[in-house]
């Protein structure tokens, strides 16, 4: 396939179509409308299911129903809409169904704004819904990467009977980059042994997330946890840049990762031995890899477009293997490479020491009266 300039949202939508998407159910919300709009054209013309739902509640529960049949299905939304989906997400997790969800994050909390943000990390990765469950969460940093991860998300969801989320922010959704889209895969309705698609001669099937008997509910929970352990073993993905001889490691996912890359290059140009670790799967989190990295470098800097939500996962992985610093921008502000470069220079000059709370130090710097 030749490279074409694609808008992130549209490329993701088309990638899903080519990955054999059979049903899409969604509700408009900026900055992800182009996904819904693209599919409102493409799905009906291919004779596949498209419904603009009455709300995000409707959408997630339509996806829930369609997933029960074994069809390849997806929904998409942005932060407030994702909050509305939390009950449904928990149900889907409890029913052990494969569903793909795209979250194009925007500034919050509340109505906030529609600018790029990474403020949904916690609600997506650490369970915004009730009960113990873990979605697979893939955080691409470019449109090509997003396009490549979409079919993977479906495959992983179906392999592990798990929700898979593509977590991006408004900037990836709205920007354009040259992209090579995959070939069109044929739609194959798999004959899953659990799918409720009408008995047609076989024994009837039931799909549900209710287990009144607590011992059975506990077994379900343990099964989910075991499966999650397997996913943690098999499905960690990340990308490393200039880390071979690095003394400082920057860690950032998605857009903040790619912005950090510019800063890292600029710092290298100034002779600073620095590299970038960019988690692609933020769940399962590359904790082992980051722990190893922490053993090799002198200090680490986490960069996010939130108040340090992934930072906690990094802290857990790093322990006191390396001193940590944090830099975040909030509420829709996208950091410039220069800001991150400034942080890098600060760290390079005065290497931080172990301990303390990096988020707290950052907040003090952010709110210090300007000189």
């Amino acid at each position: 396939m030749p490279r074409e300039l694609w808008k992130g949202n549209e490329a993701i939508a088309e990638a899903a179509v080519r990955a054999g998407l059979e049903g899409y159910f969604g509700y408009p919300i900026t900055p992800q409308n182009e996904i819904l709009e693209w599919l409102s054209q493409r799905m009906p013309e291919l004779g596949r299911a498209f419904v603009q739902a009455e709300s995000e509640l409707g959408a997630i529960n339509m996806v829930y129903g369609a997933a029960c049949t074994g069809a390849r299905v997806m929904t998409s939304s942005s932060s407030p809409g994702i909050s509305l989906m939390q009950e449904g997400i928990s149900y889907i997790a409890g029913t052990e169904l494969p569903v793909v969800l795209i979250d194009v994050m925007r500034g919050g909390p509340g109505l906030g704004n529609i600018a790029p943000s990474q403020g949904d990390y916690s609600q997506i990765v650490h369970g915004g819904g009730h009960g113990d469950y873990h979605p697979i969460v893939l955080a691409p940093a470019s449109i090509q990467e997003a396009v490549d991860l979409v079919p993977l998300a479906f495959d992983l969801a179906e392999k592990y009977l798990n929700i898979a989320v593509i977590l991006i922010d408004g900037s990836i959704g709205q920007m354009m980059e040259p992209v090579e889209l995959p070939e069109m895969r044929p739609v194959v309705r798999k004959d899953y042994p659990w799918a409720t698609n009408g008995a047609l001669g076989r024994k009837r099937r039931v799909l549900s997330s209710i287990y009144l008997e607590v011992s059975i509910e506990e077994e379900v929970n343990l099964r989910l946890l075991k499966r999650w352990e397997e996913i943690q073993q098999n499905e960690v993905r990340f990308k490393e840049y200039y880390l071979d001889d690095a003394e400082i490691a920057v860690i950032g996912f998605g857009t903040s990762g790619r912005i950090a890359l510019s800063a890292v290059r600029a710092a290298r140009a100034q002779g600073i031995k620095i590299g970038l670790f960019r988690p692609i799967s933020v769940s399962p989190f590359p904790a082992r890899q980051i722990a190893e990295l922490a053993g090799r470098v002198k200090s680490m800097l986490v960069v996010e477009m939130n108040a340090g939500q992934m930072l906690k996962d990094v802290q857990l992985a790093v322990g006191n293997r390396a001193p940590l610093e944090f830099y975040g921008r909030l509420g829709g502000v996208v950091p410039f490479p220069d800001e991150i470069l400034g942080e890098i220079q600060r760290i390079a000059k005065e290497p931080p020491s172990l301990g303390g709370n990096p988020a707290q130090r950052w907040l003090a710097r952010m709110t210090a009266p300007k000189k």
Partner: protein
Amino acid sequence: MQTEILFAGFGGQGVMFAGQVLAYAAMDKGKQVTWMPSYGPEMRGGTANCIVVIADEEIGSPLVQNPPAAVVMNLPSLDKYEPLVKSGGVLIVNASMVDRTAQRDDITTILIPANDIAEEIGDKRLANMIAIGALLGCLDILTVKDLAAALEAHMPGRHKHLLPKNFEALRKGAEHAKKQRSNQ
């Protein structure tokens, strides 16, 4: 090598499309490229902008604080972005919509009456192409020919008849810029 170009103006002045054409041309030349729009619930009267990053290797940030090149199509955009252009950079100003000169002396500024030239060509929507032409006249990243090829390759079929005038606009813009530079 990496270059960043900012385009800004009123909604309707075609700045988004201008950026996209540049991005297409870069892509067709085998470069890495990103096109990042401002987006928002901006109603009529708002300004729009986009930033194009063109590079040889994988692009990090699609946004930069101080782009080395900017095209501003109206006064609010000039006010907002002139101070941000990187020292030594290029600023293309649509003189038809701006009643002041530029203030920076550490950058190359081209004042081009893009709307007026467009009307001369006979299609006032071409101001954006004239501005791009001027830009290319000052930057060594891509040629007017590259742009023309990109337009030809990616303009939807039903608009193909507009190509000659677009070419003319690009050319006129580039010429104007060259002339102005040689006078500086």
